[in-house]
């Protein structure tokens, strides 16, 4: 191996985090300022987005759950493809399941926030929502990957910066669609698979694996329940916040938190797995009654 002097060169970003002092100031601004950028702020940095038909922001910052390292999740939807000319932006190509399969993901910077930007086309959004316009499709039929599920969720809770009428039309269509039912069934099937494993592991005396599978099953069951309540997120890191926000009658926040944190599992893994599996089973039955 040939030695060369190590280098550290700025690849993207504006270089505004060069010093501890600058990083501290940016963190403070993110903590004290919950104001979302305006469309003028955005277009000042990224004039290419001026041709978009709809721009919306969505994520922890809009939910009121922002923290010192929260990023800004921006969605830019246009009729025709937008080319990002800003060289400080890092671009990634993502393939999705729509007829037009390309979505561009960009990492940029708006004010004090890192901006994770997704660039979609109108036809792609219409196509995805259209899959849930009638009766709920089967699990094998909808063909939604993580990026597509996230888009529909983000549309359901986002805040428009541009193209409010278009945004409202899409948001209302998602809320009236069978996407929530499909998502609930999707998570429910995952939970049922985990519960089957719990049963088998307990019979085989593998208590520790049964406890881990029971936790996975509970997470799936809780996400299915939240989907029935109109929470279409796929983010497990926010499950406590999501549970508090939805406040479902089927499980208390205290019981949910105890299951998520596996309280008591270390001392009695088999007993904990059995109790948590039973709790999850009750959730799944309630979901069926409510939605399926």
């Amino acid at each position, binding site marked *: 191996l040939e030695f060369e002097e190590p280098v*550290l060169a700025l690849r993207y970003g504006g270089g505004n985090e060069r010093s501890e002092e600058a990083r501290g100031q940016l963190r403070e601004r993110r903590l004290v300022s919950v104001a979302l950028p305006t469309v003028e702020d955005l277009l000042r940095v990224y004039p290419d987005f001026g041709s978009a038909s709809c721009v919306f922001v969505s994520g922890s910052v809009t939910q009121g759950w922002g923290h010192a390292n929260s990023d800004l999740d921006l969605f830019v939807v246009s009729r025709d493809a937008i080319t990002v000319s800003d060289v400080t932006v890092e671009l990634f190509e993502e393939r999705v399941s729509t007829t037009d399969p390309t979505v561009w993901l960009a990492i940029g910077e708006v004010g004090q926030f890192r901006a994770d930007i997704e660039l979609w086309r109108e036809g792609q959004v219409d196509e995805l929502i259209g899959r849930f316009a009638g009766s709920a499709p089967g699990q094998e039929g909808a063909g939604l990957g993580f990026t597509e599920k996230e888009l529909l969720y983000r549309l359901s809770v986002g805040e428009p910066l541009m193209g409010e009428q278009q945004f409202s039309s899409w948001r209302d269509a998602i809320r009236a669609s069978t996407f929530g039912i499909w998502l609930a069934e999707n998570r429910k099937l995952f939970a049922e698979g985990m519960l089957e494993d719990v049963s088998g592991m307990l019979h085989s005396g593998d208590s520790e694996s049964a406890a881990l599978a029971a936790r996975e099953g509970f997470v799936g069951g809780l996400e299915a329940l939240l989907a029935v309540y109109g929470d279409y997120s796929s983010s497990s890191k926010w499950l406590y916040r999501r549970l508090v926000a939805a406040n479902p009658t089927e499980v208390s926040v205290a019981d949910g938190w105890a299951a998520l944190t596996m309280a008591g599992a270390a001392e009695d893994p088999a007993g904990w797995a059995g109790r948590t599996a039973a709790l999850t089973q009750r959730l799944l039955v309630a979901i069926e009654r409510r939605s399926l």
Partner: protein
Amino acid sequence: VNDTTWQPSRTIGVYTRRSGEMTLIEGYIDAYETNHVGAYIWSLCGSELNVGDIGVAVAEHYGIRIERAAAAVDVFLEELRTRGFVT
């Protein structure tokens, strides 16, 4: 770096990923690229080696004199510390 007993640790929340021949070290917004020598030094940050040990490791890995390796490690770690990637 004045203290050769300093054990540089990676700051929690920093990303590392490969990009072609380079390695990217990414903070909240700014992302820096480094070459294979920088990536090797970066791979030793958080391994509980101190600055002196890292210099020795670089010298052995690349077959160079310890003085040259130590000087390069010193400058690079200081840059990483200034950018907030190590503490």
